[in-house]
């Protein structure tokens, strides 16, 4: 069992859990993920690592409520435990001095981009960050990302904070601007990563994305996380999760992510009825 050391409701739907997991804390690096399972009947789901504290031997994950598992996870309190917490999985982000790096994050992926921006900054890069949200109420960690960014651009779809619009607009402006952009790292909803990659393609800028397909074991065994990259089948859990955004078959990935929509809905509804009844 793995104990929850701290819990924070980052926004009403986005939550942070700091979990006591000494082995994972010792090894965690930016860009990696964990697989968790809540209880005996639970499913295994991947969550990206938002932070770690090697002294406190804890790992922090940030997640958004989507289906039954993430809603149940949102009900977990400090002091509670979850059944399984495995990691760190996947390859870490390639951190090197490239020059100017643009870190683009959408929604709750801000939590994933912060340790990457931090590592990029520590490696001597100039870091420009773009964070996008649907609306101001969903925004979080502006201060944390600003700490590791030479420049920070915020967008909201409805214009309630920062610039109105989506992240690809300022991204394109940066690429068209006078300063040379050496690398782009885009993490967020699949559609946002797809369009960020489409935006950078004509400029020929190295673009890294972090894919989030369905996973089961997460350790290179089941093969459900397969994606097509540059015409070849890759397994996200062991070959990724980061890939060249210009070479990912986005439409295939998005179709595969929809495999269990009906079942996820049914599972969530049944759980909600149980909650209401009990």
């Amino acid at each position, binding site marked *: 069992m793995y104990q929850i050391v701290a819990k924070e409701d980052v926004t009403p739907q986005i939550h942070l859990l700091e979990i006591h997991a000494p*082995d*994972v804390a010792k*090894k965690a690096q930016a860009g990696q993920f964990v697989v968790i*399972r809540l209880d005996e*009947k*639970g*499913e*295994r789901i991947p969550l990206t690592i938002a932070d770690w504290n090697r002294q406190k031997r804890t790992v922090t994950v940030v997640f958004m409520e989507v289906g*039954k*598992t993430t809603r149940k996870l949102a009900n977990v309190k400090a002091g509670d435990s979850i*059944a*399984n*917490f*495995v*990691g*760190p*999985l996947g390859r870490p982000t390639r951190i090197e001095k490239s020059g100017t790096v643009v870190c683009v994050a959408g929604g709750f992926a801000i939590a994933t981009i912060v340790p990457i921006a931090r590592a990029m900054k520590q490696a001597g890069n100039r870091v420009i960050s773009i964070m996008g949200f649907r609306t101001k109420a969903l925004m979080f960690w502006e201060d944390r990302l600003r700490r590791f960014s030479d420049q920070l651009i915020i967008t909201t779809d409805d214009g309630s904070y920062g610039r109105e619009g989506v992240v690809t607009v300022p991204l394109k402006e940066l690429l068209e601007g006078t300063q040379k952009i050496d690398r782009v790292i885009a993490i967020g909803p699949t559609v946002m990563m797809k369009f960020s990659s489409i935006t950078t393609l004509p400029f020929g800028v190295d673009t890294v994305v972090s894919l989030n397909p369905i996973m*089961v*074991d997460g*350790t*290179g*065994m*089941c*093969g*459900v996380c*397969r*994606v*097509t990259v540059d015409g070849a*089948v890759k*397994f996200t859990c*062991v070959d990724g999760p980061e890939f060249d955004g210009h070479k990912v078959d986005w*439409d*295939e990935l998005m*179709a*595969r992510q*929809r*495999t*269990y929509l009906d*079942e*996820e809905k*049914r*599972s969530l509804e*049944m759980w909600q009825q149980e909650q209401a009844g009990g």
Partner: protein
Amino acid sequence: MAKLDLNRVPMPKQEPEARSENYDEVALGYSDEEALAEANRCIQCKKRPCVQGCPVGVDIPEFIDALRNNDMPEAVRSLKAKNALPGVCGRVCPQETQCEEVCTLAKKGAPMAIGRLERYVADWELNHQNDSNREVAPATGSRIAVVGSGPAGLTAAADLAKRGHQVTIFESLHVAGGVLMYGIPEFRLPKRIVQAEVDYVRSLGVEIKLDSVIGKTLTVDELQEVGYDAVFLGTGAGLPMFLNIPGENLNGVYSANEFLTRINLMKAYLFPEYDTPIKVGKKVAVIGGGNVAMDAARCAVRLGAGEVHIVYRRSRNEMPARLEELENAEEEGLIINLLTNPLRFLGNDQGWVYGMECIEMDLGEPDDSGRRQPMPREGSDFIIDVDTVVVSLGTSPNPLVPSATEGLNTTKRGTVIIDEGTGKTTKAKVWAGGDIVTGAATVISAMGAGKRAAASIDAYLQGK
């Protein structure tokens, strides 16, 4: 002595109509009378070919003799002296190509039903508290890390623990048992049997650490740094192999690993009580002719598919599946499409598979495997309507440990290179065995490899 009975006592089974709607075990096991009758067929011949035929060298005549003398604790002791997992082996070993194939009785009639008797003895022990075989040698002070808790790892751990070494198993999943838990279905190998045998290994003093992915959570070098005197790698099968034909990533196309892991490990057949879902349509095609393909197809039947096909590119003679499994599958209504090879999968605009284009095959000259090579018959392509496909072509070795371990050499296929006799790898103080060495093979061959490596590790530690 009564006249020799050339026919073995049949194994009672659930009727096909009933069992295709449940996950309960298909083969029901011998009653006391049936076991005794079968045991009495053994002529206790001097040559004991069955012992030679067993990869872990079980003293088969001894345990059978104890059984018929009604000394069940002795039967258990004899069996477990060589095999820590008899309840598993009695159910899933291919005895017909091992101990039973070479049985002296096979020259005249049906060989002894050794597997069924092994299962009977193991099940007797489960139902009777019996601590007769927990003897372990005095502690040696040596520490051994076993990576993976499948058949190879459990066997190596049990043997080493019995010799007084302190053993820790590192398992990446949330339960111990490896392929016995995620791969083989409940109706062929009940999970409570696996867990009882895992508990037996624990009772020998073996510690099992779950959620520990060696190569990620800890590396082999770190295990050595923290003081493990020897490391055994039994990490098993890795990523599934695919056909590499168009449409293989359509929704509804599973690897057998994913399909079976969802069902067996995650209990998707009990969705939504359990959270992990699985989607099985009306017409299912399973590609491949091995035991795993049979398991997947029989799961599909139980999940309510109306029509389940096994699609295999060679003929029945070349099928790697056990005859017993093929018969069980056919009794449950599976349709076997032999000499048929898929060319591509057809998908709708939502990305779901709806059909499979296949071509008929003819058998040509024998290939490298000694089997007649299937050759496509030109112009014979046709389309099968399917809404679910399970690709069951085997697996490649799991890359996590080799890719994170300096000095551990692998073949081009990714399997770990060992010395055949000892299981020693190219890295000092590291041994390996099972699917990580051989590629996908049987439970018992992995156990044999675990046993050989344990003997070599023990000899090395004693010589230190």
